[in-house]
Structures are given as structure tokens and as C-alpha cells.
């Protein structure tokens, strides 16, 4: 784009903002440009408490379980948790589990789920308050 003006760039940018794309780039020979929206991806519709809590969301659709059958629950509301500690599992099929881990050291501030409950992909299950 040899005669790219600020106005043209701003037109592209306003188009970009009207889509769900986060980045666009254009090249013509040695010339070109790249634009990215500053906004993060689409916000989740779930209520999120103040930002010192980190939401831990379901990694898959399925049934939430505290642990594999016959094994003890690893996490209690209010308890200290370690980075990478198992918080629970999502059962996605017979004998197939997807593990949910604590994202940091801290306190398991809030438990939003009961064992045996169905969960959607991306549904917040816990809030961890980082240490």
C-alpha cells in the first residue's frame, strides 16, 4: 500500500474492531502494515468477583468429580492449595477424565460446583486467591 494514509489505517482499524478478529496484516512487496486490537478476546458472561481471584474453568464438557472413583477429595473451600495441585476432574466419557489443577499457590477461595454435576466447557468451577 504505497499511499497508505492514517485515515486508511483508521478505516481498516474500525473494520477490524467490528469483527471478532484480533489481528490483521497486509503486505505488498516490501510495504505493508500489521494491526491488532488492544482489547482481549470476548469476555465471558459469567459473574467474576474482584480481580485478586483467578477463575479456574472447566477444560471440557462433562461431569465434575472431585477425584477418581474410590479416591479422596483433594480440595476444600478455604484451604491452602499448591501450584499444579489437583482440584478436581471432568469426566468426559466412560473412564475418561480431564484434570483441573490449581493455577498458582494460594487459597481456594470459592468452590462453585458440586461433585457429580454436569459442567459446560469454560464454566468457572473455582476461584483461587493467589498467595
Amino acid at each position, binding site marked *: 500500500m504505497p499511499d497508505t494514509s492514517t485515515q486508511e489505517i483508521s478505516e481498516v482499524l474500525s*473494520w477490524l474492531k*467490528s469483527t471478532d478478529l484480533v489481528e490483521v496484516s497486509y503486505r505488498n512487496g516490501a510495504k505493508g502494515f500489521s494491526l491488532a486490537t488492544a482489547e482481549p478476546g*470476548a469476555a465471558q458472561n459469567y459473574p467474576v468477583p474482584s480481580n485478586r481471584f483467578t477463575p479456574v474453568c472447566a477444560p471440557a*464438557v462433562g461431569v465434575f468429580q472431585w477425584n477418581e472413583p474410590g479416591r479422596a477429595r483433594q480440595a476444600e473451600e478455604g484451604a491452602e492449595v499448591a501450584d499444579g495441585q489437583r482440584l478436581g476432574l471432568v469426566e468426559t*466419557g466412560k473412564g475418561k477424565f480431564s484434570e483441573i489443577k490449581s493455577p498458582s499457590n494460594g487459597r481456594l477461595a470459592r468452590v462453585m460446583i458440586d461433585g457429580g454435576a454436569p459442567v459446560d*466447557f469454560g464454566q468457572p468451577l473455582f476461584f483461587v486467591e493467589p498467595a
Partner: protein
Amino acid sequence: MFKKILISNRSEIAVRVIRACKELGIKSVAVYSEADRESLHVRLADEAVCIGPGPSKLSYLNVEAILSAARITGADAVHPGYGFLSENADFADAVNASGMTFIGPKGAAMRQLGLKSAGKAVARAAGVPVVPGTPGLVDAEYMKDLRKNVTEQIGFPVMIKATAGGGGKGMRLVRDPEQIEAQLKQAQSEAQASFNDSAVLIEKFVEEPRHVEIQIACDQRGNYVALPERDCTVQRRHQKLIEESVSPAISPETRRAMQEAAVRLAKAVGYTNVGTVEFLFDKHGKFYFLEVNTRLQVEHPVTETVTGLDLVVAMIMAAAGEKLPFDQARASEIRCHAIEFRINAEDPTRNFAPCPGKITSLQLPGGAGVRVDTHIYAGYTVPSYYDSLLAKLIVSAPDRMSAIKRGLRALDELEVGGIHTTAGFHKKVISHPDFQSGKFDTSLVERMQADEEKSRAKDKVAA
């Protein structure tokens, strides 16, 4: 009958199936990706489950997530819509194996007919005409009497095709028998140079082809029904743009012959549920089997409109083991002429580039003989992850010319603010004298675009 159906799809087809469920008194479950939270199918269904992030591979193509969603919602059947997993035989088997019912054909029938080469073999065995060609690759034995073999077994004109081909490389149209040896050698060396594989086959060149397809519906009680044809000749790069029923080129005798051929094919594999047998129809009035789509088609409303029947209801009933809600005599009733326009989020002035974005305002057409199947609304953002189909506009009238006029009127009424659509392009096509006369083939859109290009160049010179 089923109590709860999960629809493993999105967009207008998910909405279409949810509507059928409501009318049958069956609960519906929508599944959606994070990019489709605001989609209409999520709002209309009785329940909705988020199955994954935006990319299809992680959501609408994620078999485990879909089966898991069906399990937690207690669905007893899965409707796949079209695209995504609808023609995946393993998915059909997995649904059935997990104690639910896949609303579509059995996995085995999908495997027998779904793949082009397999389908062709079944067609040949069932006495359905296929495009004549060499039995396999052209080998030394065949080359010995090349001209005689081609003349007697295929008939000129023929097309030489590189098996590893693509993009027209290694393809040669031969009309003159004298030229066959020279052209074959050239095609082979071109194929060798382009694909490092000189293998070629020879097929009859279908002249001025139309794309005509027969909808079939079959239950599990041995009833096989063929519906009137759909003509999908208006295409761009093999993408259908406009479909109509009945075809302006098909006589009642040809219709019957195509329907009988389609039913023979269905019976040969014990097909159940709905499907579509696609044919090429040439300028000499001959038809050739192309492939079978073992699912509901995008353009099924054209057939529903012409016959006054509901194909999604028929699918659900057939899958539940009930009798088809219509017989051959009823399915043969042609009650009007119908035309469908695919309204895509694409910019025809920029070579049909996809045009996702926010729909700022929306005015849908209405009135007599107008049906709109869509998932969009004012304020909806078209995600960039999926195909660009926004809506299907189906118009009907007692005869073809009235349907064309109604189409122009309805396309005029349609206003989609904020993004480009193909609506204006459709108006150009159906205003074209060739479309109106009904005498055109699959090259119509390309010819129109070339003409436009030419007149634009002329204007430039004049200016």
C-alpha cells in the same frame, strides 16, 4: 419417539432442526462454541451446552465433547445437520454405540456411498449411469489401441485427467480422435512435471453440464421414496449459489428415470433416512451419477417448498423407526416452483472474500411465498471461524417466471447493515437472460464475471 434431541451443529441448520423438534413436541439441546454464545440456536433450544472454544476442531468436530454433552443432558438422539460431523460414519457409529440414535443413515451405508470412488462402484453395480471412462489408470496395454479403445469404450469428446491433479494441471480436453495420442503424452509429461506422477485417466467430457440432484427418503420398514429434482447449476467454483426445483431442463420422463436410478442406488445398500444423489445432466439429455451426500442438504427447503413436505420431520420419524410421513405418490406432487438463494457474508466485488463482522441492522423480506431460514439478527456478530452462510431465502410461486419476480422483490427487501452479502449478486444472476430462459450450464457465473470484467475494462479505456 425421541424425548430429547441434541443438535450437533450451529447456525441456521441448528435453528431449522430445533423448530422441527418443537413442532413434534421433542425437547432440544443446542451445543455451541465460545464464539457462538450469542447465536440464535442457543436461545431457541430448550437447553444449551458450551462444548469448546471457537475453532471447529475443538468444538463442533469434537466427538468426545458432543457425546459428553448428550450424556449430561440426557438426550436420546443426535441430529448432525450438514457439514461438520454429518457425513462422518465413525461419529454415526459412536452415537449409536453409546445408546443414542444418530438421525441419519447407518455408518455402514455412509461408508458404502459417501466416498466418491466407492459410490461410483455401487452405482455401476446398480445400473445407474456413471460418466464413462477408462477402467483405471491408462496403462501400456490400453495405450496400444488407444484411439480405438477411447472411441469404442468412452466416445469423444474426452477429458484426460492427472490422478494426482488439481488446479487444471495435467488436464486436457480432446475433441478430435486424431489428437488423442499427442495430447495424452503431453498430459502425462505435464503431470510428471507438476506432481511427480504421470498417471492419468480418461473420462468422457460432459458437455454443457447442469448439476441436478434427487432427494431420497427411506425408512427402516423398506419404504424408499424419491422426491422431485433440485437444479443446482448456478455455482461458483463448485459452490452452489442458487438452487431451484423443478429444473427448467428436465422432462417428466427424465425425472422419473433419475428418481428410479436414485432409488435403485438406495436399495442396493439398504439405505435409511434422507440422502441426495447428485447427477450431471448434459446437453444431450443424458444424466450421469456424480456422488451421494449421505445427509440433509443445505438446499433441502427447495424440495420442502415444492412438495409441501417436511424433510427434517421425516428424518426424525425414520430414525425413530416409524413409517415415512409420505409415500411416493405424495412425494411426486409438484405444487409450485421454488428458488433458494444462499445469502453469504461475502463481498462479490472482492472475489467473494469472506466478510465477517457485526450486523448493525437487519430487514428480512416477507410476504406470500417467502421463507427465510437464518440464525442472524440485528446486533449479531458473524464469527470468522465458520462458513459464511448467513441465511437462505426461499421464494415460491405457481410458475418459474413468477418465482423469479418474487425473488427479485424479496432480494430487494433484504437489508443487512454493517457487512457485505451476496444478495445483490443473486439479483444480477436471476435478471440475466440465460437464467430467465432456463438455458444455461455450470459455467453461467464464470461467464457473467468475465463479461463484467470486460465491460469494466472497456469503461476504463473510454474514461
